[in-house]
């Protein structure tokens, strides 16, 4: 994608988006609702026309082609399984439209059904299927097309939590087996982290950062990315440098390697890089949330609430005074005005 823009009325949905997806890659478009990720996906599919810019698939410019001439396949958020056709007819629909020979149709439908464990359901109608089964029909219907690009629009968002975990693993396995170039839209950062070869984080109609999942997690390009990726989100403390210490409201942290920046800056640090112990910054415990494998402790450092990952048996009570040590190698700095990372 080169310089793709799209507005709805006066509201820009995409603002000059550039993106390269490699052959066979699983690319995740991640962002909050309304960030333009679905519009971008629909533009790749040809369901939306870009106001400006160009889209090429495998070197072929498809910008002005209809969806059916792009050799793409798409899985919709609502699955869009045809209710008046059996599962078999649904999976074979695209092949019928392409006038694939009957024998080949049957073989490919059977293959796709086997790949998604739908063999026993082929004669059923969608109304007789569960949400998870319908989702698999939608995936089978797309995969059977042997398209150049597989587009997925939040395919797991309508499943309940347990099923979503299962379907996530299934989709990842499927991609490993068929190695189809996939562009996957989600607002769920856990999905993005666990499935994506790379993640393109979108905000406000632009791709803010596009990188490997761990790189996005460890080195967020902006405060927005740090706050969107990770659960809990990255902690942010706004302050300024003074000598070689970071000074914020009620906080003074002496730094081993101070950032080269003047003026207002933001310190970003993740919950797992803070340690409650005998030394460090003084803090007051606000809330302790035991989460099974660990406890999430919210404390107030100076004037700022900060979340810390702690052992589940930490045994703290609200209002207790504690000390928080910071893993200084893991601190990320951002410009307070623009939010962009200082490297």
């Amino acid at each position: 994608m080169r310089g793709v823009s799209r507005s709805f009325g006066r509201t820009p949905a995409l603002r000059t988006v550039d993106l390269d997806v490699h052959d066979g890659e699983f690319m995740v478009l991640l962002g909050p609702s309304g960030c333009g990720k679905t519009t971008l996906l629909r533009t790749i599919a040809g369901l939306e026309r870009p106001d400006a810019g160009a889209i090429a698939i495998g070197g072929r410019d498809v910008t002005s082609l209809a969806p059916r001439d792009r050799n793409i396949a798409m899985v919709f958020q609502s699955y869009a399984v045809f209710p008046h056709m059996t599962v078999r007819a649904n999976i074979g629909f695209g092949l019928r439209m392409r006038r694939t020979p009957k024998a080949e149709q049957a073989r490919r439908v059977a293959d796709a059904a086997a790949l998604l464990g739908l063999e026993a359901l082929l004669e059923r109608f969608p109304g007789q299927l569960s949400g998870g089964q319908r989702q698999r029909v939608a995936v089978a219907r797309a995969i059977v097309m042997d398209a150049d690009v597989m587009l997925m629009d939040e395919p797991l968002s309508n499943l309940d939590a347990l099923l979503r975990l299962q379907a996530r693993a299934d989709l990842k396995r499927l991609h490993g087996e068929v190695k189809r170039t996939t562009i996957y839209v989600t607002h769920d950062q856990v999905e993005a982290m666990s499935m994506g070869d790379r993640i393109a984080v979108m905000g406000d109609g632009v791709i803010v950062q596009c990188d490997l999942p761990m790189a996005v997690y460890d080195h967020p390009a902006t405060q927005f990315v740090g706050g969107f990726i990770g659960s809990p989100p990255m902690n942010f403390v706004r302050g300024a440098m003074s000598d070689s210490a970071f000074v914020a409201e009620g906080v003074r942290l002496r730094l081993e390697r101070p950032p080269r920046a003047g003026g207002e800056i933001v310190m970003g640090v993740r919950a797992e890089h803070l340690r409650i112990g005998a030394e460090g910054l003084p803090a007051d415990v606000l809330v302790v949330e035991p989460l099974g494998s660990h406890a999430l402790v919210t404390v107030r450092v100076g004037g700022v609430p900060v979340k810390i990952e702690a052992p589940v048996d930490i045994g703290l009570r609200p209002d207790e005074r504690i000390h928080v040590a910071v893993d200084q190698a893991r601190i990320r700095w951002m410009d307070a005005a623009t939010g962009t990372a200082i490297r």
Partner: protein
Amino acid sequence: MRLPYAVDRALVYAVALLLAAWVLVPLYFIGLAAFSTPDAAYSYPKALLPVAPSAETMRFFLDSRGVVSSIVNSFAVALLTIVIALLLGAPAGYALARFAFRGRDAFAVLVLTTKMFPIAILSIPLAVTFLQLGLYDSIVGVALVHSAMALPFVILVTSGVFVAVSHELEEAAQTLGCSRWTAFLRVALPLALPGLAAAAIFTFVISWNEAFASTILTLRSRTLPALVLTALDQSPITFKFAGGFVMAAPAIAFIFLMRRYLLNLWGGR
């Protein structure tokens, strides 16, 4: 102050029963007289139960001059009306359902405002125009007027039908090798068919029961309501009962067949 639940329910059902009786009691007597002997139709006080069942009254009606040909005319007009109204109305309904175009809401209201012109006022100018165009006293002419009367209804109902068919289904078909048009034919149309059928049948009833315009605009090729209406003064009471029954029967059958759809269409939006 809120009424106790039992009183509240009782009032609702009492009103419902009253309304139902208001419609059903006359229908019952029409049907009863239509299928009783002519003597029973004239006798007074009326029997409340079918004590003298007979096909004689109906046979008399159907044997009367012009009745069978007017029934044929009515069918022809109604079928033509369905074709015209759906061919024009369904695409308009589809556009209202799918596309956000400028003036969309205004169009929806405009469609309804056509209902504000009483057919009684329009008939005379229409008759003049039809005379000039050579459409007077023709089945096509009546069907055109009936189409105009049915169109607002067809447009609004079909738009409700198409709104209920998710647009994503058509988009999915487009990504699977369909053009816009084939996506509509293969996905949206089959799913909308029951609703379109309901609209078609209702159109049939509108046309079947329309008397005024048909009377003004025809002379020899009368539709059934036009014939019955013009013959009303000179005809015996048995003729009226039988005619009334033949005119009412399709509408009643329609209500029973389409009840579920109508409730969905009007209550479910």
